[in-house]
């Protein structure tokens, strides 16, 4: 089997390994806090493939766009896209007591994406905030049932940042 092109660049190898470790940690955090350690496992090969797919995409985009560093919105979007596509989180048993296990990859990625975008802004979502719940519902639904390309996710994340970071001037209402 040929060496994957991404693996032949020394700096890329380091980034790949670090990203694998980061995602393994993040997924395990989610699984642990949901109390689902006995119900779920992480397929390391699927996770590895998702990371490689992500770097393939990002490296291609960086080369095409002539940029040194990708924006966090692009990173978050493409990570989410490839992780949902590869579905590394798997049920231990085929007998699913909780139907949410069927969509655990989409749910975990929604949680992690929400965490990341709030973290980037230095904010924490508040419990019982209907806006957060509505946003999460749409995000989770979209990842579960719609075919959302990574570039659309990137745009959605940028809209979120734009809304939070921009100073708007209210129109005078007569």
């Amino acid at each position, binding site marked *: 089997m040929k060496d994957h092109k991404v693996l032949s660049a020394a700096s890329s190898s380091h980034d790949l390994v670090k990203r694998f470790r980061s995602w393994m940690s993040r997924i395990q955090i989610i699984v642990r*806090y949901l109390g689902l350690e006995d119900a779920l496992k992480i397929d390391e090969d699927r996770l590895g493939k998702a990371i490689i797919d992500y770097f393939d995409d990002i490296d291609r985009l960086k080369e095409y766009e002539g940029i040194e560093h990708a924006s966090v919105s692009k990173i978050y979007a493409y990570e989410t896209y490839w992780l949902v596509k590869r579905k590394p989180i798997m049920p231990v048993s085929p007998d699913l007591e909780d139907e949410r296990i069927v969509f655990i990859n989409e749910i975990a990625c929604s949680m992690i994406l929400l965490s990341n975008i709030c*973290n980037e802004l230095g904010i924490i979502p508040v419990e019982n905030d209907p806006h957060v719940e509505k946003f*999460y519902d749409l995000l989770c639904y979209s990842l579960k049932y719609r075919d959302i390309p990574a570039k659309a996710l990137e745009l959605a994340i940028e809209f979120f940042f734009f809304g939070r970071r921009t100073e708007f001037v209210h129109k005078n209402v007569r």
Partner: protein
Amino acid sequence: MALVNCEEATRRFEEKLRSGYFRHDRSLNNEVDYPTEKEDRDTAGVEEFAKTGIFKVLYERS
């Protein structure tokens, strides 16, 4: 439409291309190196988020 000599038009295009006439406007950003500056922050952030009250609330809605 006035007809254009293709060869001359192509030559003009090539000259402009070489001179940098066409700005590459997609690559303007000042982003930081995510692996060194933000990746560990985001991993720690996931644990912080998992400890919040809204974490379980959102999972119940999933």
